[in-house]
Structures are given as structure tokens and as C-alpha cells.
């Protein structure tokens, strides 16, 4: 579908069509963005628990996982997730696996970053808050959910905002396995028509998207300003 679109566009420069194609790509970009956050935010919390676990095996495994995820390029991780099953087990999921592969790679990568943010937030909580809750009879789970986590979320919002903005830009890495997200499409049009315009258009899309993300996060931070 995109290929036929490209063929048509080759003949005459139709800005409107170009933006509609970029728009289609943007939907995919948005999907990567939303799905990554949706899964990596909770997974990151789980990983941070592993990282702080009393069990030293679990702790070491999560520590190694985090350090690999943060220490290697996301692009490489996308390749590994996409081609890995074929090279390791000689199973091929076909091109339908591209999108899931990108989501898996992004989720695994961002969960590692979020885990460290959660950990810093959780460890910054004073011991007295846990003790006050314990004496009042809260269970461990209640203490975490009712007392600790809400305060941690407020504390970690600034670094989470940073990661989220990085994620918007990172979505473009999906082009490496030819996902039809915005950057991939912009590059194709640019190559076919030898023009910079689609790339600039994509840049504007990313920029506005990030502006909105920043605005949303600021709103969220403000909404938690009612206490200190």
C-alpha cells in the first residue's frame, strides 16, 4: 500500500498526499510510543523490585539485565529481538513479527531505564514512612500501594518525563527493520523525490509531539503539587 502510494507520489509533488502519508506513519509512531509506555512502566516497577530483592540470584539477574539494556544500543536490541529467533531456533515469524519485535525490544529497553528510576525513587523514601505505616497496622502491600508508591510517583515524574521525551525520538529507530512509522516513510519519500521536505515535515511532527508530551507531563506534575 505504501509502495503504491510512493509510486504515485513520484510523478508530482503533492504536499497534501505527503503529509497524509506522514500522518499514517505518525499513527504507527504513536502506537509504538503508547504500547511501549503501557508495558514498560509496570514492567519497570517489577524489574526494580527484582533489583532490590533480598534474594541475591534475582538481584544479580535483574542487575545484569539492566546493565545490558542500558549498555548496548537500542538499535542492536531491535535486531536481536527481530532476527534472534531465526538464528537461535531457526524459527521465522515472517514480516508480521516486525511490529511485535519492535514493541518487545522497546519495552525491554525502557523497562530497564524505568526500573532504575523507580529504584532511586523508592530508595529515597524515608524509613520512617514504612515504620509509621507498620505501627498503624498497614500490610506490606497496603503500605506500598497507599503510602509509598504515590509519593514515589511524584518524586520520579521529572526523570520519567525525560525518558518519555527520549522515547518519542527513539521510535524512529523502528525504521531499522522497516516498520512503516513516520521516519521510515519520510526517508522513503525523500529518497524517491530527492527532497528534504518530508524529513523536515517529520521533524515538525516529532517536535510538536514532544511539545505535547512535555505539556502533558507538566500538567501531571502540577496536579500533584497539592502536597510536598
Amino acid at each position, binding site marked *: 500500500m505504501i509502495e503504491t502510494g510512493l509510486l504515485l507520489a513520484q510523478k508530482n509533488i503533492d504536499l497534501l498526499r505527503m503529509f497524509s502519508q506522514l500522518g499514517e506513519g505518525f499513527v504507527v509512531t504513536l502506537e509504538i510510543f503508547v504500547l511501549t509506555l503501557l508495558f514498560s512502566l509496570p514492567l519497570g516497577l517489577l524489574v526494580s523490585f527484582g533489583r532490590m530483592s533480598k534474594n541475591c540470584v534475582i538481584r544479580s539477574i535483574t542487575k545484569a539485565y539492566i546493565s545490558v539494556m542500558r549498555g548496548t544500543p537500542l538499535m542492536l536490541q531491535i535486531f536481536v529481538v527481530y532476527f534472534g529467533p531465526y538464528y537461535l531456533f531457526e524459527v521465522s515469524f515472517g514480516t508480521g513479527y516486525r511490529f511485535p519485535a519492535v514493541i518487545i525490544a522497546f519495552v525491554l529497553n525502557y523497562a530497564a531505564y524505568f526500573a532504575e528510576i523507580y529504584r532511586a525513587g523508592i530508595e529515597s523514601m524515608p524509613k520512617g514512612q514504612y*515504620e509509621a505505616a507498620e505501627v*498503624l497496622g498497614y500490610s506490606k502491600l497496603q503500605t506500598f500501594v497507599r503510602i509509598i508508591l504515590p509519593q514515589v510517583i511524584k518524586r520520579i515524574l521529572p526523570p520519567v518525563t525525560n525518558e518519555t521525551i527520549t522515547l518519542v525520538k527513539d521510535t524512529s529507530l523502528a525504521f531499522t527493520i522497516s516498520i512503516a512509522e513516520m521516519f521510515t516513510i519520510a526517508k522513503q519519500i525523500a529518497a524517491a523525490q530527492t527532497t528534504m521536505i518530508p524529513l523536515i515535515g517529520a521533524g515538525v511532527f516529532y517536535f510538536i509531539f514532544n511539545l505535547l508530551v512535555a505539556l502533558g507531563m507538566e500538567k501531571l506534575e502540577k496536579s500533584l503539587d497539592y502536597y*510536598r
Partner: protein
Amino acid sequence: MTQRQVLLEMNHVKKSFDGVQVLSDISLAVQEGEVVSIIGPSGSGKSTLLRLATLLERLDDGELIYMGEAAATSENGKSVYASKEKLKQLRKVFGLVFQNFQLFPHFSVRKNITDALVHVEKVSQEEADSRAEKLLAQLGLSDKADNYPYQLSGGQQQRVSIARALALQPKILFFDEPTSALDPELTGEVLKVIKELAREHMTMIIVTHEMQFAREVSDRILFMEQGVVVQEGTPDEIFENPVERVREFIGKLG
């Protein structure tokens, strides 16, 4: 005098941290309605004693008994704790007021008081709110119910934390230096609240450096040093006939 119920018994309590003995052999019994103050120099183990009693720290050896029911018994020179369920049940007997309040900053004053009632005690929100209202009125904080802790003075925060503890209707209330995080001009309002509670025969164990207050409010005073009780008696006995070490200590504080 009628024999009142013994609410708390700590027998031959021992505790060390990293091989350093912090409490050597402390025994203590507190009857219903009694106010016991614990005084002594820094590092003598007063907070540790309270933390053991409130189950925040575990005894090495000795017994911890609430209303005749053992939280910890001593077996072969080691403390053995009761089941989790039992401890959960015994935790309801006491409340603890921290030196630095430890209010929950993300909860309003009212919610600080009602949240445990609703989510731990499973009291209805209405009932919890009405208890909170009464307590706030009693402690002169009615107009602060919808404020957040950061909007209150230290003295007000400490009174809220007392209300939070009282809401759960404990039989014993522990205080660990309830006024030492406060500016001097704010200690009075907190001490006044504690004195009122004493008048209502609330059973309390208070670690404090406020000698005059301890003398006024207590039925009994324990002087601790280096993990042992050096002298124990009524305020008059302690202040009129202090042993050498206690005299020095009281003298120093004026």
C-alpha cells in the same frame, strides 16, 4: 489500691547491634492508666526500647507481653516471636508517636487520621470521619482538617500524629521524644495535649528530655544509661533522691 491490669511487660530484654550490646537486661511492667517516662543520656537505648516494644525491632533475648499475651517469649537464651497473625493482633494494642511525626504528606490531615481506620480496621468512612472530627476538635485542630501536613507548624503536625495514633484507640501510646524536633515555642502545645491525655488516664510511655514535664506528668520515671535502668521511681523519688549519676544528668539539663 485495686490491682489494675498489666498492659505491657518486658522481661530481661537484651538487644545488640553489630555485636554491641545496646540493652543489657531491661525489665519493665506498665499498668493500665500509668504514665511512665524514660529519661537518660543520648545513646542509652531509650529509642531502642520503644522500637522493641512497638515491634519495629526484634528482641535478641527476653519476653515481650501485651495484656498477658506473648509477642515474644524467651527460649534457650533467644527470643521467639509469636505468629504473624498474633503480632498483627497485638499491634492494635499500642500506638507510637514519632519524634519527626512521620505524617503521610500526600494525605490531608483528615485522611492521615482516617485512612488506617478505613483500610486497616475496616471502619466505615462515615464513622472514621466522625472520629477524626472529634479528635481534631479535642486537639484544637478542627480548622486544619483539609490542610496538608506541609501547611502546618511542627507543633500542629505532631498533634495530628497524636490524633492519628489515638484514632485507632490503642490501649498504650508510646512517644519517642515528641517535642525534640520542635522549636522551643511549639513544645508547649504538644506537652499540653499529652498532659490532657494523662488526665484522662491514657496509658503512656514517654521518652523525653523535658525534665519538668516528666516530673509533672509521670507516675513513674525510669532513668536509663548504657542499656540498663539505673534508677526507677516516682517523680519525687527521682528528683528528690537521685542517685549520683541521675543527679549529674538532671543537674546538667537544669
